[in-house]
């Protein structure tokens, strides 16, 4: 198995607050990895350290075997990372089509299809000429994912992809992610919704207090007492 992303001894502190305390982590090519944990576990900070939004206080991030310490965020994207933000970061004054036009233009080698194909795949055909400010929350999330996918990434980060979605939309998003995975795309998903996690992931990583608490197959992890205690707030 090819290791796509790896972190070694990753630490981050803001003044005296130690948010990430030495995480060793890796994702293999073709995997869907869900990162879960209670609020304040350090998921978002961990995510931002990988994407380059924050610089680590100690330790390193390796992508495709290359140290990312001095690689700027936009350069990481060009190397094959792609991100869907927690809060939809669409551009209000651009139409759905213009969003995909823009992101496909940024794609380098592996374009995942034409604008029309992406519109169809992400169920946005009816909204092709709608300005992003007029989209529903769920459609904005799908547009975000479509933009991230259209860059033709090697590794896709999804930060809470179903936050604020209805049950139907959540299920449809899960199926969408499974289809993307079947096409060989590697994904790292940060998510709270356990039903959704169970739908898409075979392997999860649990963070707690800025450290890696558990890592392994979903069923085994959820069966662990310590995970149930910190994540679900109960003792078995």
């Amino acid at each position, binding site marked *: 198995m090819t290791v796509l992303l790896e972190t070694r001894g990753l630490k981050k502190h803001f003044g005296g607050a130690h948010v990430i305390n030495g995480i060793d982590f890796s994702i293999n090519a073709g995997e869907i990895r869900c990162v879960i944990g209670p609020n304040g576990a350090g998921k978002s900070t961990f995510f931002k350290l990988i994407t380059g939004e924050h610089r680590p206080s100690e330790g390193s991030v390796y992508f495709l075997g290359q140290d990312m310490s001095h690689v700027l965020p*936009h350069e990481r994207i060009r190397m094959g990372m792609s991100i869907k933000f927690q809060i939809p970061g669409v551009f209000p004054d651009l139409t759905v089509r213009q969003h995909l036009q823009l992101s496909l233009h940024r794609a380098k080698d592996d374009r995942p299809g034409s604008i029309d194909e992406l519109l169809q795949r992400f169920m946005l055909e009816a909204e092709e000429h709608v300005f992003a400010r007029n989209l529903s929350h769920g459609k904005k999330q799908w547009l975000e994912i479509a933009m991230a996918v259209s860059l033709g990434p090697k590794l896709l980060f999804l930060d809470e992809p179903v936050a604020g979605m209805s049950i139907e939309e959540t299920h449809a998003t899960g199926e969408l992610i499974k289809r993307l995975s079947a096409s060989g795309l590697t994904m790292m998903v940060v998510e709270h919704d356990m039903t959704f996690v169970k739908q898409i992931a075979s392997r999860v990583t649990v963070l707690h207090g800025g450290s890696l608490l558990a890592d392994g197959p979903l069923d085994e992890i959820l069966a662990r007492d310590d995970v149930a205690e910190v994540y679900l707030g109960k003792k078995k």
Partner: protein
Amino acid sequence: MKQTQMPLRGLRWLPWAVALCLPLVLDANTNGNLAYCLLWAFSAVGLAAMWGYGGILSFGQTAFFGLAGYGYGIFTLNFGDNWFESWLGLVTGLVISVVVAALIGYMIFFGRIKGVFIGIVTLSVTLVLETFMAQTAGPQWAIGEARLNGYNGMGGMPQLTIPWPGGALTLENTSFYYLVLILLFAVYAVMRRLLDGTFGLTLVAIRENPQRAEMLGVDIRRHQLLVFVLGSALGGLSGALYTIWGSYITPSTMGLTAAAMPVIWVATSGRKSIGGAILGTALLVWLSQNLAVYGSQYALILMGAILLIVVLAAPEGLLPFVVKHLRRLQGRAGRRGSRARFDETLKQEEGKS
């Protein structure tokens, strides 16, 4: 939908057609004055690209205006007034404004200066240039044959000429008007192509959500620098043409009042519309010129009043406001027509039964 928008799209070419035909019915002197109204539009287009698309509010258009104007003057006063030198002087003025814009832009964007501070920095640059040029009245302030002359202004620069059978042809009044018009159309066409394409989309994305744009792999600072240099170069083109038109330039063209004018023109005309910026600027300069006959203070008061009214009533700018309402009216008329046809059909069906 397309049917209702077609006539309005056709209207886009109407001002160009009118501008093309105007000199046929006006005298040469008036054509020269019209050229003056049009030449400021380059600066406005540059600001519209920066501000309307890239979200960069620059008060520095006048700095590049002055640099290119003085550049043209210094070059032609030193190297002669043949046709080739006059055009080379124009290019020199533009190159100076591009180089200085690249340096200032690099410091702004790679120094991570954002938002209102860009306005403050660019305003400071133009005011520093004005202050410096204002104290150059003494004879020691000369570059070769060119006296800078402080507030008395630098004068005596040659006009543009082109080689012509029987001697060089000086571009003045009507011919200068057509030169400005051709340049303006070329700039309009290039800017529309650029801003309607992925470069424009990228700028809008940076303006609306820079963090997201960066996560699409966009080098934000490079794009901001590019549009800043492009817009500033257009400010420079206005300055060089202004100097050619009047054979004169003074430090007040880089002063506080002058620095505010492009912002007023663009805010009034519509900062997201290149065509609107051209039309609005030409009309506002024309209005300002006519009012100046009765006292320049009236023109400034009127400009301020127009800006205030537009910002309150049509914040997106006058031309986009008018177009939006015309489209709405067209839509209503279209719906009324459909309703009438539906009623007619209904009556016919009822008559049959």
